[in-house]
């Protein structure tokens, strides 16, 4: 069954017919056909779906902002008297919110100096660093058929190890940073490794184990922060000493910018993950167990070992993300240091379709939403929580392309109706 034949098939789905119609004139028909073709091409490319998902998410967010804004609510109370008020206020409110989001994330044209104007994009990257690193860790799991929900715990362990090395030890400049980063990697690898080894040896479901490990890590950190030997502050505050200068990730653009060498780590890690998955024999094994563990086992792949390795490597990347977050941005360990990075990393990996470059870009996008969200909250009073809504809507839509196509009346990429494709799948089964 070739694509060629498929395209000559009569239309079946509602989406098809709505885009095709049955125009009277031949010229019009031709134009329609071309449009149809273009639309189909468009919806075939996944980045278009991603873009449209972002558009829908912003629209949903806009509606929420309008609904929650007191000024809009007051104009709504006399909506029938002066509807224009309602619409202009709504428009202004949403415009203010999103323009401050943009100014906080990319370029602030209202800032007094050039330095302040370009600072937002660097802030975006600051937020993106842990998201990218942890997102890559999660993405490796997805590619290998492992749903690692434990980014949060792995990050906490990475932070804990890196931080303790960072302030409790006294070492020369380069070595200290290196050791602290290694500590972060080790911490994350241990936490991921627990889930990995349990999965490999007993078949314990990694989703459950990693969720449980997240909570255990949380209490472990809470306990550690009450121990004087750990925090080394001499006070009862649940926070640690700051890491030594020698263990900090150096800033890249000097004072005024927080962007640190962690971004270089993130870029390097992106390349490393690409090489690992696409070019190395280990990557072949990991992809094989991800697609079909039975066939991989029959082909001589040590599935238990590879399974454990996936979560160890994934945990190590999450741990490195945590370490970079601490050594580059936070410096002090607090109970809430991991924030929601671990869960955000899952959405980052999903949005990036578990590919290294995609994950990198998704990390930058979500970093931008965070950086912009901070400014938005400060300037317009729109709570930063709206960013969570945007993130989740984007990911949900990207996971369900048919829904996006339905929202925008796009035809199916292959020009086939859903039910027909299903039937074909059956036909293959029957024929096999």
């Amino acid at each position, binding site marked *: 069954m070739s694509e060629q034949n498929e395209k000559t098939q009569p239309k079946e789905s509602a989406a098809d017919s709505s885009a095709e119609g049955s125009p009277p004139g031949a010229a019009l028909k031709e134009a329609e056909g071309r449009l149809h073709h273009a639309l189909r091409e468009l919806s075939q490319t996944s980045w278009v779906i991603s873009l449209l998902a972002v558009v829908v998410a912003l629209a949903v967010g806009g509606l*929420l902002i309008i*609904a*929650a*804004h*007191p000024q809009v609510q007051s104009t709504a109370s006399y909506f029938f008297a002066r509807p224009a008020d309602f619409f202009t206020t709504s428009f202004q409110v949403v415009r203010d919110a999103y323009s401050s989001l943009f100014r906080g994330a990319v370029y602030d044209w209202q800032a007094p100096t050039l330095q302040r104007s370009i600072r937002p994009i660097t802030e975006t990257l600051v937020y993106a660093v842990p998201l990218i690193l942890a997102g890559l860790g999660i993405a490796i799991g997805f590619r290998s058929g492992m*749903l690692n*929900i434990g980014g949060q715990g792995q990050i906490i362990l990475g932070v804990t190890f890196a931080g303790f090395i960072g302030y409790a030890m006294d070492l020369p400049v380069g070595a200290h940073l290196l050791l602290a980063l290694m500590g972060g990697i080790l911490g994350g690898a241990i936490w991921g490794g627990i889930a990995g080894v*349990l999965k490999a040896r*007993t*078949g*314990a*479901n990694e*989703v*459950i*184990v990693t*969720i*449980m*490990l997240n*909570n*255990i890590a949380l*209490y*472990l950190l*809470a*306990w550690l922060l*009450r121990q004087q030997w750990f925090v080394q502050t001499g006070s009862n505050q649940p926070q640690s000493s700051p890491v030594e200068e020698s263990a900090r990730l150096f800033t890249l653009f000097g004072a005024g910018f927080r962007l640190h060498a962690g971004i270089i780590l993130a870029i390097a890690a992106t390349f490393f993950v690409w090489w690992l998955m696409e070019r190395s024999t280990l990557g072949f094994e990991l992809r094989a167990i991800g697609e079909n563990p039975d066939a991989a086992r029959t082909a001589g792949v040590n599935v238990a070992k590879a399974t454990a390795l996936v979560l160890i490597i994934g945990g190590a990347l999450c741990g490195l993300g945590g370490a970079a977050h601490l050594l580059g941005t936070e410096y002090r360990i607090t109970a809430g240091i991991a924030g*929601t990075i671990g*869960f955000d990393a*899952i*959405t980052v990996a*999903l949005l990036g379709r578990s590919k290294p470059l995609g994950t990198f870009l998704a990390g930058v996008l979500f970093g931008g939403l965070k950086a912009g969200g901070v400014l938005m909250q400060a300037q317009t009073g*729109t*709570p930063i*929580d*709206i*960013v*969570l*809504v*945007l*993130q*989740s*809507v984007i*990911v*949900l839509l990207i*996971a*369900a392309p*048919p*829904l996006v196509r339905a929202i925008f009346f796009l035809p199916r990429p292959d020009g086939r109706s859903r039910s027909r494709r*299903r039937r074909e*799948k059956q036909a293959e089964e029957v024929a096999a």
Partner: protein
Amino acid sequence: MSTETVAVHAEPLEEASSTLKPVNLKFPITYAVMAMVALGVFALFSPAGAVTRFRLGAPTDFIEIPLAEVPAAPTNWVLGAALAALAVLAFVRAYQRKRLGRWHPVLFGVLFVAAFLVWAGADRGAVIPLVTMLTGALALSVPLIFGAMCGLVGERTGVINIAIEGQLLAGAFLAAVAASVFVNAYVGLVAAPIAGALVGALLVVFAVKYQVNQIIVGVVLNVLVIGLTSFLFSTVLTQNSQLWNARQQLPRLPVPVLSEIPIIGPVLFNQTILVYLMYVIVALLYVFLFRSRWGLRVRAVGEHPKAADTVGINVNRTRTINVIFAGAIAGLGGAFFTVGQGLAFGQEMSAGQGFIALAAMILGRWNPLGAMFAALLFGFSTSLGNTLSTIGTPVPSEVLLMLPYIITIFAVAGFVGRVRPPAANGEPYVK
């Protein structure tokens, strides 16, 4: 003819396999270790002459029940010996390849906890408030039990629900808002299931209609609900908290006679209607899941959807209806956080309870009663942790708070028997 030959050749094989079946010493060894802890730590380190005091009455009781005092060290030697005896029994049974009754682990657990409490409270001058602790345990278990029931109905039809957390939170939110607006806590109870069901409906749309990986949908829905409720909390609810987020509490409705029973009476039968509803739901689910047409079909769809399809059961419709229904149960459980306890809504107030509910469901092996007991166990360990952190004990409260999660990891790793989820769990059904 051939059936006869089958029978003849079957015998020696069965024999062979039974002799080769390895002796499983996992449990006996665990029991032995725990008995040794009881003797070597709880008994040995209970200071001589120290006493442990328990308060058996509720603080509100009309008649004050006197404090119970036990001598710590002697009590723990007795308890330790009993635990050791139970451990020996477990070894004997294991070598005989016989099963132990269910009473064994329960008794062992109760004795071990008693020994722990006697040790932890020894000579501290403080009183261990037993009823308060148990009441707290039940209170902490309520959302867990509702959440676990939601999870198991969904998974029995083959849809994994990681969004229980979100459903609890949504239920808590809408219950608070509805109760506040109508100035009536019972309105909150009506609204909460709707919120949970809506989240369930979203789960179904993506998991069943668009066949997105169910775990991913669940994770993302949690983020969505947290984002939505936090956003609305920081805006609408704070702008006019008197209207939108005023505290409303369900009244306690003591059951006549039953609530007078010492210790368990006030714990179980002096509760709000929400808790009584929970008893009813657990009981009904237990009966209907295994004894009714609905239960049979739900389980069929979760185990082998294609087989269900061939007998005319609409797989995806069954999943859709039940996941939404399950969402309503979780939403109702969420109401406990707000109207159930008389609290206003707060950001992320479900605090990961949805995930523990999931753990309780697994530990309870997808069985309503099992899941309930697992949830009660988790609630108890948290309550124990809270109590101990106020009276101050040698064991950090964080360790007790971690306990549910650690137990669950042991459970899924197969240390407490094989956990077998519904066969088609998590797999979309494409006809």
